[in-house]
Protein backbone atom coordinates (compact mmCIF):
# COMPACT_ATOMS: atom_id res chain seq x y z
CA UNK A 1 0.00 0.00 0.00
CA UNK A 2 1.29 3.41 -0.96
CA UNK A 3 -0.05 6.49 0.71
CA UNK A 4 -0.60 9.81 -0.98
CA UNK A 5 -0.70 12.95 1.04
CA UNK A 6 -3.82 15.03 0.34
CA UNK A 7 -4.14 18.60 1.54
CA UNK A 8 -7.67 20.01 1.76
CA UNK A 9 -7.73 23.78 1.58
CA UNK A 10 -11.10 25.31 2.39
CA UNK A 11 -12.24 27.93 4.85
CA UNK A 12 -15.48 26.08 5.64
CA UNK A 13 -14.86 23.49 8.37
CA UNK A 14 -17.91 21.51 7.22
CA UNK A 15 -16.45 20.97 3.76
CA UNK A 16 -13.08 19.94 5.20
CA UNK A 17 -14.56 17.38 7.55
CA UNK A 18 -16.93 16.19 4.82
CA UNK A 19 -14.04 15.52 2.46
CA UNK A 20 -12.08 13.78 5.20
CA UNK A 21 -15.04 11.49 5.81
CA UNK A 22 -15.45 10.67 2.14
CA UNK A 23 -11.76 9.97 1.66
CA UNK A 24 -11.40 7.79 4.74
CA UNK A 25 -10.95 4.16 3.68
CA UNK A 26 -10.99 5.16 0.03
CA UNK A 27 -8.53 3.22 -2.09
CA UNK A 28 -7.46 3.43 -5.69
CA UNK A 29 -6.18 0.42 -7.53
CA UNK A 30 -5.00 0.02 -11.08
CA UNK A 31 -4.57 -3.32 -12.83
CA UNK A 32 -0.84 -2.86 -13.44
CA UNK A 33 0.04 -0.93 -10.31
CA UNK A 34 2.00 -3.02 -7.86
CA UNK A 35 0.12 -1.61 -4.93
CA UNK A 36 -3.06 0.23 -4.07
CA UNK A 37 -3.04 3.84 -3.02
CA UNK A 38 -4.72 5.20 0.05
CA UNK A 39 -4.79 8.73 1.34
CA UNK A 40 -3.61 10.62 4.32
CA UNK A 41 -5.45 13.89 4.81
CA UNK A 42 -4.36 17.21 6.15
CA UNK A 43 -6.38 20.40 6.36
CA UNK A 44 -5.71 24.10 5.95
CA UNK A 45 -8.28 26.87 6.33
CA UNK A 46 -6.42 29.45 4.25
CA UNK A 47 -4.10 29.76 1.28
CA UNK A 48 -1.32 31.08 3.50
CA UNK A 49 -1.52 28.05 5.77
CA UNK A 50 -1.60 25.77 2.75
CA UNK A 51 1.63 27.26 1.44
CA UNK A 52 3.26 26.97 4.85
CA UNK A 53 2.40 23.26 4.84
CA UNK A 54 3.61 22.47 1.32
CA UNK A 55 6.84 24.38 1.94
CA UNK A 56 7.47 22.20 4.95
CA UNK A 57 6.52 18.73 3.80
CA UNK A 58 5.82 16.88 0.57
CA UNK A 59 2.19 16.87 -0.52
CA UNK A 60 0.91 14.88 -3.52
CA UNK A 61 -2.57 16.25 -4.12
CA UNK A 62 -4.30 19.46 -3.09
CA UNK A 63 -8.06 19.88 -3.09
CA UNK A 64 -8.23 23.62 -3.34
CA UNK A 65 -11.16 25.97 -2.84
CA UNK A 66 -10.79 29.10 -4.90
CA UNK A 67 -12.63 31.49 -2.62
CA UNK A 68 -10.51 31.85 0.47
CA UNK A 69 -10.30 34.64 3.04
CA UNK A 70 -6.80 35.93 2.26
CA UNK A 71 -4.98 34.88 -0.88
CA UNK A 72 -7.25 32.98 -3.23
CA UNK A 73 -6.90 29.57 -4.84
CA UNK A 74 -5.40 30.89 -8.06
CA UNK A 75 -2.61 32.55 -6.09
CA UNK A 76 -1.85 29.30 -4.32
CA UNK A 77 -1.71 27.64 -7.73
CA UNK A 78 0.66 30.30 -8.99
CA UNK A 79 2.94 29.73 -6.04
CA UNK A 80 3.05 25.98 -6.66
CA UNK A 81 3.78 26.55 -10.30
CA UNK A 82 6.52 29.12 -9.73
CA UNK A 83 8.25 26.76 -7.30
CA UNK A 84 7.78 23.87 -9.76
CA UNK A 85 6.42 21.65 -7.04
CA UNK A 86 5.35 18.14 -7.96
CA UNK A 87 1.79 18.56 -6.72
CA UNK A 88 -1.51 17.84 -8.44
CA UNK A 89 -4.17 20.40 -7.73
CA UNK A 90 -7.89 19.89 -8.00
CA UNK A 91 -9.98 23.04 -7.73
CA UNK A 92 -13.15 22.94 -5.74
CA UNK A 93 -15.35 25.84 -6.50
CA UNK A 94 -18.94 26.81 -6.02
CA UNK A 95 -19.38 29.31 -8.81
CA UNK A 96 -17.49 27.89 -11.69
CA UNK A 97 -16.99 30.44 -14.42
CA UNK A 98 -15.21 29.84 -17.68
CA UNK A 99 -12.79 32.61 -16.87
CA UNK A 100 -11.78 31.03 -13.59
CA UNK A 101 -11.49 27.63 -15.22
CA UNK A 102 -9.17 28.98 -17.91
CA UNK A 103 -7.07 30.84 -15.38
CA UNK A 104 -6.78 27.82 -13.12
CA UNK A 105 -5.91 25.49 -15.97
CA UNK A 106 -3.26 27.86 -17.27
CA UNK A 107 -1.77 27.81 -13.81
CA UNK A 108 -1.61 24.08 -13.73
CA UNK A 109 -4.80 22.90 -12.03
CA UNK A 110 -5.50 19.33 -13.00
CA UNK A 111 -9.30 19.42 -12.83
CA UNK A 112 -12.42 20.89 -11.24
CA UNK A 113 -15.01 19.64 -8.87
CA UNK A 114 -18.03 21.86 -8.53
CA UNK A 115 -19.49 22.53 -5.14
CA UNK A 116 -21.70 20.94 -3.93
CA UNK A 117 -20.40 17.53 -4.94
CA UNK A 118 -21.53 14.03 -4.09
CA UNK A 119 -19.09 11.62 -2.39
CA UNK A 120 -19.05 9.65 -5.62
CA UNK A 121 -18.00 12.66 -7.69
CA UNK A 122 -15.18 13.48 -5.34
CA UNK A 123 -13.91 9.90 -5.24
CA UNK A 124 -13.95 9.54 -8.98
CA UNK A 125 -12.08 12.83 -9.40
CA UNK A 126 -9.47 11.72 -6.87
CA UNK A 127 -9.20 8.35 -8.58
CA UNK A 128 -8.44 10.03 -11.91
CA UNK A 129 -5.86 12.30 -10.45
CA UNK A 130 -4.19 9.39 -8.66
CA UNK A 131 -3.89 7.35 -11.82
CA UNK A 132 -2.57 10.32 -13.70
CA UNK A 133 -0.02 11.03 -11.00
CA UNK A 134 1.08 7.42 -10.89
CA UNK A 135 1.61 7.28 -14.66
CA UNK A 136 3.40 10.61 -14.71
CA UNK A 137 5.84 9.54 -12.01
CA UNK A 138 6.32 6.15 -13.60
CA UNK A 139 7.17 7.76 -16.95
CA UNK A 140 9.58 10.09 -15.30
CA UNK A 141 11.47 7.34 -13.50
CA UNK A 142 11.57 5.26 -16.66
CA UNK A 143 13.04 8.17 -18.59
CA UNK A 144 15.61 8.62 -15.91
CA UNK A 145 16.58 4.96 -16.13
CA UNK A 146 16.80 5.32 -19.88
CA UNK A 147 19.27 8.12 -19.43
CA UNK A 148 21.19 6.04 -16.93
CA UNK A 149 21.47 3.17 -19.40
CA UNK A 150 22.57 5.65 -22.05
CA UNK A 151 25.27 7.02 -19.78
CA UNK A 152 26.63 3.57 -19.00
CA UNK A 153 26.60 2.76 -22.68
CA UNK A 154 28.57 5.89 -23.50
CA UNK A 155 31.16 5.32 -20.79
CA UNK A 156 31.77 1.77 -21.98
CA UNK A 157 31.82 3.03 -25.54
CA UNK A 158 34.48 5.58 -24.74
CA UNK A 159 36.52 2.84 -23.09
CA UNK A 160 36.16 0.67 -26.19
CA UNK A 161 37.20 3.53 -28.44
CA UNK A 162 40.10 4.62 -26.31
CA UNK A 163 41.71 1.23 -25.78
CA UNK A 164 42.73 0.91 -29.44
CA UNK A 165 43.93 4.51 -29.48
CA UNK A 166 46.04 3.84 -26.39
CA UNK A 167 47.44 0.69 -27.95
CA UNK A 168 48.33 2.38 -31.22
CA UNK A 169 49.77 5.39 -29.43
CA UNK A 170 51.90 3.05 -27.34
CA UNK A 171 53.31 1.38 -30.43
CA UNK A 172 54.01 4.71 -32.11
CA UNK A 173 55.92 5.93 -29.05
CA UNK A 174 58.01 2.78 -29.07
CA UNK A 175 58.75 3.29 -32.75
CA UNK A 176 59.51 6.97 -32.31
CA UNK A 177 62.12 6.15 -29.69
CA UNK A 178 63.46 3.27 -31.80
CA UNK A 179 63.16 1.10 -28.75
CA UNK A 180 63.66 -2.27 -30.40
CA UNK A 181 65.96 -1.46 -33.30
CA UNK A 182 66.83 0.88 -36.13
CA UNK A 183 65.25 -1.05 -38.97
CA UNK A 184 61.60 -0.72 -39.90
CA UNK A 185 61.27 -4.48 -40.06
CA UNK A 186 61.98 -4.64 -36.32
CA UNK A 187 58.53 -3.11 -35.90
CA UNK A 188 56.53 -5.30 -38.27
CA UNK A 189 54.49 -6.93 -35.54
CA UNK A 190 53.68 -3.58 -33.99
CA UNK A 191 52.57 -2.19 -37.32
CA UNK A 192 50.37 -5.21 -37.94
CA UNK A 193 48.85 -4.94 -34.49
CA UNK A 194 48.19 -1.23 -34.98
CA UNK A 195 46.44 -1.92 -38.28
CA UNK A 196 44.40 -4.62 -36.59
CA UNK A 197 43.31 -2.24 -33.83
CA UNK A 198 42.33 0.35 -36.42
CA UNK A 199 40.24 -2.27 -38.17
CA UNK A 200 38.55 -3.04 -34.87
CA UNK A 201 37.76 0.60 -34.34
CA UNK A 202 36.29 0.89 -37.77
CA UNK A 203 34.03 -2.09 -37.08
CA UNK A 204 32.94 -0.49 -33.85
CA UNK A 205 32.12 2.75 -35.60
CA UNK A 206 30.15 0.95 -38.30
CA UNK A 207 28.18 -0.94 -35.68
CA UNK A 208 27.60 2.26 -33.78
CA UNK A 209 26.16 3.75 -36.92
CA UNK A 210 23.83 0.77 -37.30
CA UNK A 211 22.70 1.28 -33.76
CA UNK A 212 22.18 5.01 -34.20
CA UNK A 213 20.16 4.41 -37.31
CA UNK A 214 17.95 1.98 -35.43
CA UNK A 215 17.45 4.29 -32.52
CA UNK A 216 16.95 7.52 -34.36
CA UNK A 217 13.37 8.21 -35.21
CA UNK A 218 14.40 10.56 -37.98
CA UNK A 219 15.19 7.80 -40.41
CA UNK A 220 11.99 6.59 -42.00
CA UNK A 221 11.83 2.82 -42.17
CA UNK A 222 11.05 1.52 -45.59
CA UNK A 223 8.97 -1.57 -45.19
CA UNK A 224 8.37 -3.53 -48.35
CA UNK A 225 8.86 -7.00 -49.74
CA UNK A 226 12.41 -8.17 -49.13
CA UNK A 227 13.77 -11.35 -50.70
CA UNK A 228 15.47 -13.12 -47.80
CA UNK A 229 17.48 -15.50 -49.98
CA UNK A 230 18.92 -12.56 -51.84
CA UNK A 231 19.94 -10.74 -48.68
CA UNK A 232 21.59 -13.92 -47.41
CA UNK A 233 23.43 -14.35 -50.70
CA UNK A 234 24.85 -10.83 -50.43
CA UNK A 235 25.89 -11.46 -46.82
CA UNK A 236 27.75 -14.62 -47.87
CA UNK A 237 29.41 -12.79 -50.77
CA UNK A 238 30.58 -10.06 -48.41
CA UNK A 239 32.23 -12.61 -46.14
CA UNK A 240 33.76 -14.55 -49.02
CA UNK A 241 37.28 -13.06 -48.74
CA UNK A 242 37.59 -13.96 -45.08
CA UNK A 243 36.04 -17.37 -45.67
CA UNK A 244 38.63 -18.07 -48.35
CA UNK A 245 41.45 -17.07 -46.01
CA UNK A 246 40.25 -19.55 -43.40
CA UNK A 247 39.16 -22.07 -46.02
CA UNK A 248 35.62 -22.03 -44.65
CA UNK A 249 32.92 -23.37 -46.95
CA UNK A 250 29.62 -21.53 -46.99
CA UNK A 251 26.24 -22.99 -47.96
CA UNK A 252 22.90 -21.34 -48.54
CA UNK A 253 19.64 -23.20 -48.58
CA UNK A 254 16.70 -20.89 -49.22
CA UNK A 255 13.51 -21.26 -51.26
CA UNK A 256 13.19 -18.91 -54.22
CA UNK A 257 11.16 -15.77 -53.76
CA UNK A 258 10.69 -16.09 -50.04
CA UNK A 259 9.79 -12.54 -49.15
CA UNK A 260 9.29 -10.82 -45.83
CA UNK A 261 7.51 -7.53 -45.37
CA UNK A 262 10.42 -5.65 -43.82
CA UNK A 263 13.07 -2.96 -44.06
CA UNK A 264 15.92 -4.27 -46.18
CA UNK A 265 18.59 -2.36 -44.21
CA UNK A 266 17.44 -4.02 -41.02
CA UNK A 267 17.34 -7.50 -42.52
CA UNK A 268 20.84 -6.93 -43.90
CA UNK A 269 22.11 -5.98 -40.46
CA UNK A 270 20.66 -9.18 -38.98
CA UNK A 271 21.98 -11.40 -41.75
CA UNK A 272 25.43 -9.77 -42.01
CA UNK A 273 26.05 -10.00 -38.29
CA UNK A 274 25.07 -13.65 -38.03
CA UNK A 275 27.01 -14.71 -41.13
CA UNK A 276 30.12 -12.72 -40.29
CA UNK A 277 30.19 -14.16 -36.76
CA UNK A 278 29.80 -17.66 -38.20
CA UNK A 279 32.88 -17.09 -40.37
CA UNK A 280 34.97 -15.12 -37.86
CA UNK A 281 34.49 -17.57 -35.01
CA UNK A 282 34.95 -20.62 -37.22
CA UNK A 283 37.94 -22.91 -37.40
CA UNK A 284 40.22 -23.46 -40.41
CA UNK A 285 38.47 -25.66 -42.99
CA UNK A 286 35.15 -25.18 -41.22
CA UNK A 287 31.66 -24.74 -42.63
CA UNK A 288 28.85 -22.22 -42.42
CA UNK A 289 25.34 -23.03 -43.50
CA UNK A 290 22.44 -20.66 -43.75
CA UNK A 291 18.97 -22.19 -43.97
CA UNK A 292 15.89 -20.09 -44.56
CA UNK A 293 12.39 -21.52 -44.34
CA UNK A 294 8.79 -20.35 -44.35
CA UNK A 295 6.51 -22.18 -41.94
CA UNK A 296 2.86 -21.47 -41.12
CA UNK A 297 3.11 -17.85 -40.14
CA UNK A 298 6.76 -17.17 -39.72
CA UNK A 299 10.12 -17.37 -41.40
CA UNK A 300 13.12 -18.98 -39.78
CA UNK A 301 16.70 -18.05 -40.51
CA UNK A 302 19.19 -20.57 -39.22
CA UNK A 303 22.92 -19.88 -39.29
CA UNK A 304 25.09 -22.82 -38.27
CA UNK A 305 28.85 -22.90 -37.94
CA UNK A 306 31.46 -25.46 -37.03
CA UNK A 307 33.44 -22.96 -35.02
CA UNK A 308 34.95 -22.57 -31.60
CA UNK A 309 31.58 -22.52 -29.80
CA UNK A 310 30.86 -21.20 -26.35
CA UNK A 311 30.13 -22.56 -22.91
CA UNK A 312 26.83 -21.87 -21.13
CA UNK A 313 28.17 -18.96 -19.17
CA UNK A 314 29.45 -17.28 -22.31
CA UNK A 315 26.15 -17.86 -24.11
CA UNK A 316 24.27 -16.24 -21.26
CA UNK A 317 26.21 -12.99 -21.67
CA UNK A 318 26.28 -13.07 -25.45
CA UNK A 319 23.67 -10.44 -26.25
CA UNK A 320 24.95 -7.77 -23.88
CA UNK A 321 26.28 -4.58 -25.37
CA UNK A 322 30.07 -4.58 -25.71
CA UNK A 323 30.10 -8.22 -24.71
CA UNK A 324 33.07 -9.95 -26.18
CA UNK A 325 33.94 -13.48 -25.30
CA UNK A 326 37.58 -13.25 -24.32
CA UNK A 327 39.69 -16.36 -24.37
CA UNK A 328 42.65 -17.97 -26.07
CA UNK A 329 40.56 -18.74 -29.13
CA UNK A 330 39.05 -15.30 -29.66
CA UNK A 331 42.17 -13.30 -28.95
CA UNK A 332 42.90 -12.48 -32.56
CA UNK A 333 39.34 -11.94 -33.70
CA UNK A 334 38.25 -8.36 -34.21
CA UNK A 335 34.80 -7.33 -33.07
CA UNK A 336 32.98 -4.47 -31.44
CA UNK A 337 30.84 -6.47 -29.08
CA UNK A 338 27.82 -4.64 -30.43
CA UNK A 339 26.71 -6.82 -33.34
CA UNK A 340 24.58 -9.34 -31.50
CA UNK A 341 23.00 -6.79 -29.20
CA UNK A 342 21.90 -4.93 -32.32
CA UNK A 343 20.56 -8.12 -33.88
CA UNK A 344 18.59 -8.96 -30.76
CA UNK A 345 17.15 -5.46 -30.56
CA UNK A 346 16.01 -5.65 -34.16
CA UNK A 347 14.59 -9.15 -33.99
CA UNK A 348 12.72 -8.69 -30.75
CA UNK A 349 11.79 -5.02 -30.61
CA UNK A 350 11.28 -4.20 -34.25
CA UNK A 351 10.00 -7.50 -35.67
CA UNK A 352 8.55 -9.07 -32.53
CA UNK A 353 10.43 -12.22 -33.34
CA UNK A 354 12.74 -14.46 -31.37
CA UNK A 355 16.40 -15.32 -31.48
CA UNK A 356 17.87 -18.43 -29.92
CA UNK A 357 21.37 -19.80 -29.75
CA UNK A 358 22.75 -23.25 -29.20
CA UNK A 359 26.44 -23.81 -28.81
CA UNK A 360 28.92 -26.56 -28.09
CA UNK A 361 32.46 -25.56 -27.09
CA UNK A 362 34.76 -26.53 -29.96
CA UNK A 363 31.74 -27.97 -31.78
CA UNK A 364 29.99 -24.97 -33.24
CA UNK A 365 27.18 -22.53 -32.76
CA UNK A 366 23.70 -22.28 -34.24
CA UNK A 367 21.68 -19.10 -34.24
CA UNK A 368 18.03 -19.34 -35.12
CA UNK A 369 15.88 -16.31 -35.82
CA UNK A 370 12.11 -16.51 -36.15
CA UNK A 371 10.23 -13.57 -37.60
CA UNK A 372 6.44 -13.43 -37.94
CA UNK A 373 5.46 -13.31 -41.62
Amino acid at each position, binding site marked *: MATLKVLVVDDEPGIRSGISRIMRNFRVSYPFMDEDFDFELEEADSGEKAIAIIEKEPVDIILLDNKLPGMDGIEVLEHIRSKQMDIYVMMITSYASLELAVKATTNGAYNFVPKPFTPEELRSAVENITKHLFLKRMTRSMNKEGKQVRFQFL*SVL*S*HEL*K*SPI*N*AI*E*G*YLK*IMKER*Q*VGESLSDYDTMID*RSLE*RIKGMRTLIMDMMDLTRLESTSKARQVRKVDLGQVARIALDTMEPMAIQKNVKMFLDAPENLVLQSDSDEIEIIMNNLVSNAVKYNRENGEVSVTIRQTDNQVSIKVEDTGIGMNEEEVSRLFQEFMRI*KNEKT*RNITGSGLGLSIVKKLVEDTYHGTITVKSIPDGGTTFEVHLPN
Partner: protein
Amino acid sequence: MKEDKKTILIVDDDADCLAQMELQIRRLGFEVITADSQKKGEEVIMEKEPDLAIIDLMMENKDSGFILCYKMKQQYPGMPVIIASAVTAETGLRFGVETEDERRWIKADTFIEKGIRPDQLEREINKLLKI
Protein backbone atom coordinates in the same frame (compact mmCIF):
# COMPACT_ATOMS: atom_id res chain seq x y z
CA MET B 1 73.82 -3.95 -10.76
CA LYS B 2 70.90 -6.30 -11.15
CA GLU B 3 72.54 -9.63 -10.61
CA ASP B 4 69.56 -11.62 -9.57
CA LYS B 5 66.85 -10.07 -11.66
CA LYS B 6 63.59 -9.22 -9.96
CA THR B 7 60.43 -10.65 -11.46
CA ILE B 8 57.43 -8.52 -12.28
CA LEU B 9 53.98 -9.91 -13.05
CA ILE B 10 51.93 -7.90 -15.54
CA VAL B 11 48.20 -8.55 -15.87
CA ASP B 12 46.22 -6.89 -18.66
CA ASP B 13 43.45 -8.17 -20.91
CA ASP B 14 44.44 -5.93 -23.80
CA ALA B 15 47.05 -7.94 -25.69
CA ASP B 16 48.73 -4.82 -27.04
CA CYS B 17 48.96 -2.99 -23.75
CA LEU B 18 50.32 -6.16 -22.24
CA ALA B 19 52.99 -6.48 -24.93
CA GLN B 20 53.97 -2.82 -24.61
CA MET B 21 54.21 -2.93 -20.83
CA GLU B 22 56.23 -6.13 -21.06
CA LEU B 23 58.64 -4.46 -23.45
CA GLN B 24 59.07 -1.44 -21.17
CA ILE B 25 59.65 -3.56 -18.08
CA ARG B 26 62.14 -5.84 -19.80
CA ARG B 27 64.06 -2.82 -21.00
CA LEU B 28 64.30 -1.71 -17.40
CA GLY B 29 66.06 -5.01 -16.73
CA PHE B 30 63.40 -7.08 -15.02
CA GLU B 31 62.12 -10.59 -15.61
CA VAL B 32 58.50 -10.53 -16.73
CA ILE B 33 55.58 -12.91 -16.33
CA THR B 34 52.36 -11.98 -18.11
CA ALA B 35 48.74 -12.92 -17.63
CA ASP B 36 45.82 -11.73 -19.74
CA SER B 37 42.97 -11.98 -17.27
CA GLN B 38 42.14 -11.78 -13.60
CA LYS B 39 41.78 -15.56 -13.62
CA LYS B 40 45.18 -16.13 -15.22
CA GLY B 41 46.71 -13.70 -12.78
CA GLU B 42 45.30 -15.71 -9.90
CA GLU B 43 46.73 -18.88 -11.39
CA VAL B 44 50.19 -17.35 -11.65
CA ILE B 45 50.32 -16.27 -8.02
CA MET B 46 49.26 -19.74 -6.90
CA GLU B 47 52.54 -20.97 -8.32
CA LYS B 48 55.05 -18.33 -7.39
CA GLU B 49 55.51 -14.99 -5.75
CA PRO B 50 56.65 -12.26 -8.08
CA ASP B 51 58.61 -9.36 -6.62
CA LEU B 52 56.01 -6.90 -7.82
CA ALA B 53 52.78 -6.92 -9.82
CA ILE B 54 51.33 -4.39 -12.24
CA ILE B 55 47.68 -5.02 -12.96
CA ASP B 56 45.11 -3.46 -15.22
CA LEU B 57 41.98 -2.23 -13.50
CA MET B 58 39.23 -3.07 -15.97
CA MET B 59 39.47 -6.60 -17.30
CA GLU B 60 36.69 -9.21 -17.28
CA ASN B 61 34.79 -6.89 -15.01
CA LYS B 62 35.13 -3.25 -14.11
CA ASP B 63 36.66 -4.14 -10.77
CA SER B 64 38.77 -7.14 -11.77
CA GLY B 65 41.94 -5.25 -10.91
CA PHE B 66 40.78 -4.44 -7.39
CA ILE B 67 39.74 -8.02 -6.74
CA LEU B 68 42.96 -9.47 -8.07
CA CYS B 69 44.92 -6.97 -6.04
CA TYR B 70 43.02 -7.94 -2.91
CA LYS B 71 43.74 -11.61 -3.48
CA MET B 72 47.42 -10.96 -4.10
CA LYS B 73 47.72 -9.00 -0.89
CA GLN B 74 46.04 -11.78 1.00
CA GLN B 75 48.51 -14.29 -0.28
CA TYR B 76 51.64 -12.15 -0.28
CA PRO B 77 51.10 -9.21 2.09
CA GLY B 78 54.59 -7.88 1.40
CA MET B 79 54.42 -7.87 -2.39
CA PRO B 80 53.94 -4.38 -3.87
CA VAL B 81 51.06 -4.04 -6.32
CA ILE B 82 50.61 -1.28 -8.87
CA ILE B 83 47.23 -0.77 -10.49
CA ALA B 84 47.50 0.64 -13.99
CA SER B 85 44.46 2.07 -15.63
CA ALA B 86 43.25 4.50 -18.19
CA VAL B 87 40.22 5.07 -16.05
CA THR B 88 40.85 8.65 -15.05
CA ALA B 89 41.42 9.78 -18.58
CA GLU B 90 38.36 7.94 -19.80
CA THR B 91 35.74 8.47 -17.18
CA GLY B 92 36.97 11.31 -15.07
CA LEU B 93 36.75 9.06 -12.04
CA ARG B 94 39.69 9.33 -9.74
CA PHE B 95 40.96 6.56 -7.63
CA GLY B 96 43.76 7.08 -5.24
CA VAL B 97 45.41 5.51 -2.27
CA GLU B 98 46.28 8.74 -0.56
CA THR B 99 44.05 8.63 2.48
CA GLU B 100 43.77 6.03 5.23
CA ASP B 101 40.17 5.39 4.25
CA GLU B 102 41.11 4.56 0.68
CA ARG B 103 43.96 2.38 1.81
CA ARG B 104 41.58 0.34 3.90
CA TRP B 105 39.60 -0.98 0.98
CA ILE B 106 41.89 -0.47 -1.99
CA LYS B 107 44.88 -2.64 -1.39
CA ALA B 108 47.14 -1.34 -4.14
CA ASP B 109 50.37 0.43 -3.25
CA THR B 110 50.26 2.84 -6.18
CA PHE B 111 48.10 3.79 -9.10
CA ILE B 112 49.59 4.69 -12.43
CA GLU B 113 47.94 5.99 -15.55
CA LYS B 114 48.39 3.92 -18.68
CA GLY B 115 50.73 5.65 -21.09
CA ILE B 116 53.04 6.65 -18.24
CA ARG B 117 56.56 7.59 -19.42
CA PRO B 118 59.13 4.80 -19.04
CA ASP B 119 61.29 6.88 -16.66
CA GLN B 120 58.31 7.62 -14.42
CA LEU B 121 57.38 3.97 -14.44
CA GLU B 122 60.92 3.02 -13.47
CA ARG B 123 60.88 5.48 -10.61
CA GLU B 124 57.63 4.07 -9.24
CA ILE B 125 58.90 0.51 -9.49
CA ASN B 126 62.23 1.27 -7.89
CA LYS B 127 60.53 3.10 -5.07
CA LEU B 128 58.36 0.09 -4.30
CA LEU B 129 61.18 -2.42 -4.68
CA LYS B 130 63.43 -0.14 -2.62
CA ILE B 131 66.14 -0.22 -5.24
